[in-house]
């Protein structure tokens, strides 16, 4: 089995009007066996910045922790919150440092610019190639299913509530067509003054 499909998992981020949403499934399994249903794939990296990682679970944790370390140093040195674009470069650098023995984790970044509050989403591949889009980004074992759902459901300039509904439906239905993702979905919606976190009830099979 492919290394990226060993533990399973999926992360999805969408952009709306003045807000972004990021969602991830909660299954942690070892190939066929489900070990737990409360795995954390989305990590807070700033006041309005969240990082989601899909792939091999050990590398997901390692990358998140190393990144947090570098981010803390950055904030101490600069004395301010990092911009999402800069954070994307930081992630890209960290992943490319391991070009010939990579971390098997594919990140998705969603956040608002700390000053202008402009929404920003991007994804990177496992060796750090960044891709910024204006609609949605995703990574995980059910990426094809998620692409299909997002292409059908996404529309521009969605308000936070509508964005939440859209990303939830996209995520739930995509992971229902993947054997190694699912077992619950957690959704974060980042607006200029708050981050709303909701855990969705999903099929537990």
């Amino acid at each position: 089995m492919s290394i990226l499909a060993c533990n399973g998992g999926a992360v999805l981020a969408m952009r709306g009007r003045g807000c972004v949403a990021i969602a991830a499934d909660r299954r942690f399994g070892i190939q066929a066996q489900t070990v737990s249903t409360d795995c954390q794939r989305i990590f807070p990296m700033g006041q309005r910045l969240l990082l989601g990682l899909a792939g091999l679970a050990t590398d997901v944790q390692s990358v998140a922790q190393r990144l947090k370390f570098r981010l803390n140093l950055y904030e101490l040195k600069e004395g301010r919150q990092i911009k999402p674009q800069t954070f994307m470069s930081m992630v890209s650098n960290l992943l490319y440092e391991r070009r010939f023995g990579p971390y098997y984790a594919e990140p998705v970044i969603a956040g608002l610019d700390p000053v202008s509050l402009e929404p920003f989403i991007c994804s990177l591949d496992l060796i750090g190639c960044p891709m910024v889009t204006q609609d949605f980004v995703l990574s995980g074992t059910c990426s094809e299913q998620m692409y299909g759902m997002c292409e059908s459901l996404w529309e521009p300039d969605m308000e936070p509530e509508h964005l939440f509904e859209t990303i939830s439906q996209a995520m739930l239905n995509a992971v229902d067509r993947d054997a190694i993702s699912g077992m619950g979905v957690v959704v974060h919606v980042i607006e200029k003054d708050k981050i709303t976190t909701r855990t969705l009830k999903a099929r537990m099979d």
Partner: protein
Amino acid sequence: MPSTKMAPAPFSLPASPLINMATATSGTTSVRFAHAPPPFRAVCALPLTKMAPRPPHRRHFVGAEFPSPQLPGSKMALASVLRAELAEFSPNFPKNFPKNFPKNFPEDFPDDSEGIPEILRDPPGPPRVLAAPPWGFEAEPEGPGLQILHGTTTLAFKTPHGVTVAVDSRATAGSYIASQSVRKVLPIGGRMLGTMAGGAADCAFWQRLVARQCRVQELRNKEPVSVAAASKLLANLVYQYKGLGLSLGTMLCGWDKRGPGLYYVDSEGQRVAGAAFAVGSGSSYAYGVLDRGLAAAARSEEAACELARRAIAQAAHRDAYSGGCVRVMHVGPEGWREVSHHDIAELQEKYLE
């Protein structure tokens, strides 16, 4: 003096990762040696040229031409199965270690597999394990060899009221869920059910063939065919294709004049009677729930069906390749009927609180 009952030969069961068997404590388990010589008139008189693809010619082993009970192609049956370099059978090892033991064991070990037809040998590759390792499965070598544990969970167990059968309904292609509404129970006549695990096409085709043959026999003998006979028909049919890559792990459940009947038949040639079986990638999880409640399930049909439902729901939760909905069926003296059909997500709301 000819004896119809052979003393059980000291052999190890051919590795069949399709099943972890729960052998009954009531002693109804009987293990038949898969290579038993067929009678002169084979039980399956089905003209293969008309109905089924012709298998390659096989010799029928008679008397002294029996292959030895070792797994064909292996050096030492148990050692190869357990992946040990050398199996230590004697308590006085290494004192009794023979002096002329070949230094380059296993290369130098006399290999009698040349006398065994190509078709009966193990496929090349790492030896198969008896039970799935606890943390996932290794990638199987490509080729017509056996494929370990297909994505499904099916179970069946006997009670005084009949046989309770429960199956999930998920079909996966790799990790993609191809369908959540597959029918994994096939009726064989009005009085028997066959569950499906392994290759769907294989199961569907061969069980239909067996159903046809059972009907013919019923018409000839004016008596419903027994579960033992039907399972023997199926086992003999698929045994002709052993080694060619058929994948079948089915339980035949029925009620005949001897009471409830339950046989597990697979494409390796195993045909085993028992009181409870779970088959598929989720079978271990199903056994956990099943074994706990079997005694209580004998009380009533509803208790038995509820136990079967819970076992499948648990397997669907833990196993990635099982899910969809649970179908519970029951085979009693008056025939088979579908008891219930629940979506697993709804069941789990009830159970996993």
